[in-house]
């Protein structure tokens, strides 16, 4: 069974009366319980791809199936985590996390109860009433994560979620994302994450989809079968990293 099926999609737009194609005939699938990383040079349309999976954008040709149904409007089985966090600065941590629940018409009481659970899950208990500007980068991204998890998505979409964080914070958060993904108590099934760091992709993913530069196609689909927790110093790890490097450069 496939959860998500990207079928031969292309995306182009017109700028200054020139037709620019950013994605050309891209196809891959994501199974339940799978962690997929999409990797490629900057400007290759990785983020556009993610937006199309969320239903925020539409492919010019081809289609994306979610549980065998084509995505026509906002895909409410998914939630996105952004590189820039995309928190509303005028809402508290609690209100930010509640945003998606409010949109789904969940009662205020239920909203707060659910938000509490996910705020605790990402380790932000005690910060419910803080505003984003009072938090560090790592904490902001935890809010972003809690906000995404609160709507209980099956598929979590992450757009370079660790790029704006310092190395140490990013490392901690990566571990926590793996933990959350493996957490049996959550509805969360699969993750699609866009990144430009090969090492990060190999460290996290079950499969790495490698894309070319614009107009991007899928160059390769590399399964990573290393046991977890993974160790970056192992030869097997380095061999896969090197292999992907050679594909891109």
């Amino acid at each position: 069974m496939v959860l998500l099926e990207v079928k031969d999609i292309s995306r182009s737009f017109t700028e200054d009366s020139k037709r620019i194609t950013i994605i050309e005939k891209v196809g891959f699938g994501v199974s339940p319980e799978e962690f997929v990383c999409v990797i490629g040079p900057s400007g290759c349309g990785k983020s556009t791809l993610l937006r199309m999976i969320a239903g925020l954008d539409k492919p010019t040709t081809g289609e994306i199936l979610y549980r065998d149904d084509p995505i026509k409007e906002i895909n409410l089985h998914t939630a996105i985590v952004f590189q820039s966090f995309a928190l509303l600065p005028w809402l508290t941590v609690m209100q930010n996390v509640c945003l998606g629940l409010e949109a789904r018409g969940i009662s205020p009481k239920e909203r707060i109860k659910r938000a509490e659970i996910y705020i605790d899950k990402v380790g932000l208990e005690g910060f419910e009433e803080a505003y984003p500007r009072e938090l560090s980068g790592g904490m902001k991204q935890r809010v972003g994560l809690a906000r995404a998890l609160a709507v209980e998505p099956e598929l979590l979409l992450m757009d370079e979620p660790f790029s704006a964080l310092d190395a140490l914070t990013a490392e901690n958060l990566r571990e926590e994302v793996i933990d959350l993904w493996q957490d049996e108590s959550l509805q969360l099934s699969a993750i699609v994450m866009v990144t430009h760091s090969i090492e990060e992709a190999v460290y996290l993913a079950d499969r790495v989809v490698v894309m070319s530069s614009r107009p991007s196609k899928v160059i390769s689909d590399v399964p990573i079968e290393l046991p977890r927790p993974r160790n970056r110093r192992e030869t097997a790890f380095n061999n896969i990293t090197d292999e992907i490097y050679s594909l891109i450069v």
Partner: protein
Amino acid sequence: MGFIPSKVEGRIKTGLAIAAALILLLFATRYALTHIPDEARKLPYFAFCSFSRMLAAYILSLTFALTYGYAAATRKWAEKVLLPALDILQSVPVLGFFPVAVGFFILLFRGERVGIELASVFLIFTSQAWNMAFGVYESTTTIPKDILRATASYGTRGWLKFKRLYFPASLPKLVYNSMMSWAGGWYFLMACEIIALGARRFTLPGLGSFLLDSSDKGRVDLIFLGLAVLILIIVALDALFWGPLTSWAKKFTYQMAPAGQTTPQSVWLSQIKDMFILFRFNRGWVALLRLAGIVNQPIKNLIRRVENSRAWPRIKRALRGISLAILAAGALYGTYWALQGLMRLFSHPIPSEAKAIPLSILASFLRLAMAYILCLAWTVPTAVLIGENERVSRFLMPLIQVTASIPATALFPLIVVVVVHHLWGGMNLASILLILTGMQWYVLFNLIAGVRAIPADLKEAVRSFGVSRWSYLRRVLLPGIFPSLITGSITGWGGGWNALIVSEYLRFQGKTRTAFGIGMLLDKATYETGNSLMILLCLVGMIMVIVLMNQLLWRKLYAKASTKYIIEL
């Protein structure tokens, strides 16, 4: 008083100051009760009337700005129509709306008080609404893309999206522009309370008409009294309302303030605020909001029940249909009314004065240019001084803010008396000075913000090379403030054109003084002959020049400023 903690010392000082102010007020009241001229006894009532009109117009402007700005920002087709329309509306001076006010509101109510009041509120609205709508449009279109995507990806739509995203995102600019609009409203209050079209003259009780009347009679003492009341209201509004609101609105900006940089405030003022106003103010508002919450919940529940019912889609469609029908009917009637009016206008022969329009525009333009040069000559050095020097800023800013809040139109008769009787240049110089008052504050405040926005790192990096003061000015400061200079100039010229209309024509001591220009022609057509066709021709000529200048000069400079001279962080 070294052994007293400074906080306590501050409190004592503040307390003493307030006691002194109270005593002063007591004496002033006693003096006033015995010495105030009879004509001024109604001033509190006039103040109340004017304030109510301003408030009504402001509520109208707020509603307009939110719907118009939101529509222009979120719908592609609307943007193409609404923005240019706003551009034109903004450059129509308040007198240009007189024929509409008289022909529509006053006629509709057959000259009854209600109609005149409505006309006046409408006129004040025209000096408040446009920049607020621009503010909403700008803030809605500049919401960071990721935030838009995030809210959309959670399926946030409709009212929730407005409440959580668009409205809060608009707040900082809305509050700022509201202050501007109130200032604009006071500035043109005098023009909005005496509505005239030729022989037809409608006067409403209020501060504006009081000031104008006093000027007509040449009573300088009454002008000063009226002005004092006006300034009192403005300062009180600022302390009670706009001050707290501005600091609250800072919560709704995206970026964090750079560490260690706080807006300078007078220590005394903030302490007085601390002790009295803010405390009560916030409590009052919180209580009010709670009350609103109690009423709000049942309404919300009702809405939810309706929304969940099976008939909702049909109700929704019906509601949309009805509102569209009302809108369409309104638009149709408006067009019919305007067309009919135009037909009637053009059935008259073109007035002979119309030949003077091109030359008059040139004369007015020269006055504006003179005012602009004067404006730059004092605002640029002042802005550099204030922006660079914290101590000067702390001393000068409160002073400047109070001065800027005085509507100069009320001072105009005095300017004319002083200039015409004691200086050279006559009405020409007086007119230029009044234009300057309509122009300078926009430029100054934009420039100060520009100087402050130059990153400290950049300043220090350049200084560390040991460059001279002059090349620091030339290489860093002046290019750095160029974008703010352009923004300030655009709004400043807008304000200048508006001020122009009231600056070339003045009645003082029963005599009319004029300076030849488009403002004079327009004033004469409005107040003396009441020739609507002439008014229309003047407006068209003037708006054409303004729009052309915006397109050919300011847009280009703005584009240049925002590509070459912008400092990106």
